[in-house]
């Protein structure tokens, strides 16, 4: 435990010193905040450009708060995931190919401790980024478009966080087994395929992690609460544990280069 904490602290220090802990939250916040802002100022922007006639601009539908927050969520599931996977593709692969893992694993450090510290470090970054971003988005939406009831917003946000933990675990497992760029490609393909399959046949894949996204959207959109997402949550958490265990097993089996 002590050793895992030590390695976790090193992960955080590294993200501070290479400014990852700065720019990823910043990009996430921008991602979140642009939606309410552009929705609010869109009519004015169009008017200033002078292209469209005034009547058309006036009849432009003003999006409600729930609509704006839904757009924010869709940004997360697109660009947010892309960012998380690409920024995390070298999580373990970087240390393995760079040779720094060797001098760590030669000490009395279990591969499981190493993997958990890596996962915790990166997930901390994701949590910080997401919380800041989602909070800012909710704040600006409540300023400009109206308040989304906080219980629903929290539920939707929580579900997205679980989805992100799935993405982080998957990326880390790919990063342990494959080289960096291959890890990014495989992770994105899997996530993409999962989302696509769920979009096509939602009834078949109601248990899958992708269902978390539609449930989250449901919280914000509909007047009544959507079906209990206990099954997808449980499945997603189990998959996360599976990926972490697989990473640890793979690391132990590999020859560590220096």
């Amino acid at each position: 435990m002590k050793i895992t904490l030590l390695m976790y602290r090193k992960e955080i220090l590294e993200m501070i010193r290479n400014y990852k802990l700065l720019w990823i939250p910043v990009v996430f916040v921008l991602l979140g905040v642009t939606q309410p802002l552009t929705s609010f100022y869109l009519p004015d922007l169009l008017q200033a450009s002078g292209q469209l006639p005034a009547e058309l601009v006036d009849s432009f539908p003003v999006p409600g708060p729930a609509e704006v927050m839904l757009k924010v969520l869709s940004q997360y599931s697109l660009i947010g995931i892309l960012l998380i996977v690409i920024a995390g593709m070298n999580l373990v692969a970087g240390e393995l190919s760079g040779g720094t893992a060797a001098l760590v694993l030669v000490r009395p450090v279990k591969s499981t401790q190493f993997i958990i510290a890596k996962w915790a470090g990166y997930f901390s970054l994701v949590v910080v980024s997401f919380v800041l971003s989602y909070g800012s988005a909710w704040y600006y939406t409540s300023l400009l478009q109206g308040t989304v009831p906080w219980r629903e917003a929290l539920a939707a946000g929580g579900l997205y966080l679980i989805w992100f933990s799935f993405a982080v675990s998957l990326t880390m497992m790919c990063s342990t087994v494959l080289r960096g760029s291959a890890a990014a490609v495989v992770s994105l393909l899997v996530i993409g395929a999962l989302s696509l399959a769920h979009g096509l046949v939602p009834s078949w894949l109601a248990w899958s992690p992708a269902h978390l996204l539609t449930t989250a959207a449901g919280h914000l959109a509909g007047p009544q609460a959507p079906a209990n997402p206990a099954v997808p949550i449980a499945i997603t958490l189990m998959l996360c544990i599976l990926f972490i265990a697989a990473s640890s097993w793979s690391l132990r089996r590999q020859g560590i280069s220096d």
Partner: protein
Amino acid sequence: MSRLSVTQLSKKFGTRTAVKEISFELEEGGCTALLGPNGAGKTTTLRMLAGLLSPTSGSVLINGKETSEISWRNQIGYLPQHPSFYGWMTGKEYVVYAAGLSGMTGKQAVAEAELILERVGLSEASRRRISGYSGGMKQRLGLAQALVHHPRLLLLDEPVSALDPLGRREVMDLLQQLRQGTTILLSTHVLHDAEEVCDRIIMLRSGEIVEHGSLAELSAKYRQPLLTIQVESDPKGQAAAWLHSLQDRSFVRDFELRGDTALLTVSDMGIAREVILKEAGSRTMPLLRFEAGATSLEDMFMKVVGS
């Protein structure tokens, strides 16, 4: 009881067998040199001993215990040939981190780190970031992280290759001091260093042990009388011709000509000396150097490995 015993250790990478069932034992204390040409399997062997690579077959036992247990890793200090560090850390931060991973508490880790950095000559530079370190400094840092937890077994892969003569001298002195309580296994190409600090040698070639033993045993076995004769280069080429003629004498076992110097491995130094000096005198050969010595470790290396 031996500190380290390796039995039938082998490693296959696909179809290529890098290490072919080698066995050896290292007693506690003392220094053993792992010699061999490039590709002999020295680094692979060291990495298997350090636990970074799992062997295809065979076992490594430390004091009778299987090395697959994680608890013995604290007894081992490993220095790879090209150590990699986190460039964003300072030298001291890294050594403190390494000490912490080996189980030392905060204050103890810092104290031990400072001590070892002083010993390897990095106390000044330890406050700077590793990304700014030269190759020699990185190697010293590597040595520091291998020693900070006071291991009983040191595995060093080419520990002095990147150092300048001054650094080399310092590290060799450090190794001499460590020999008392620590068992050292180091791989090197610099045979002179192996001779200086090690008392046992294991020679690898193509994954197999071709020779091993203490320096004394190997000297007795391989050391042969060597005559070095150097003549002035004369325009008529008489001296050079005379050198050539020495090749066919009965007492000459091996002959090598390098420019104006002939190296003769002889069977009997007494006879050789008498005959050659007489000839040189009677024919008034312009002798520059006549040295009666012995073949070096390097010659043995070339012979054993080249055969």
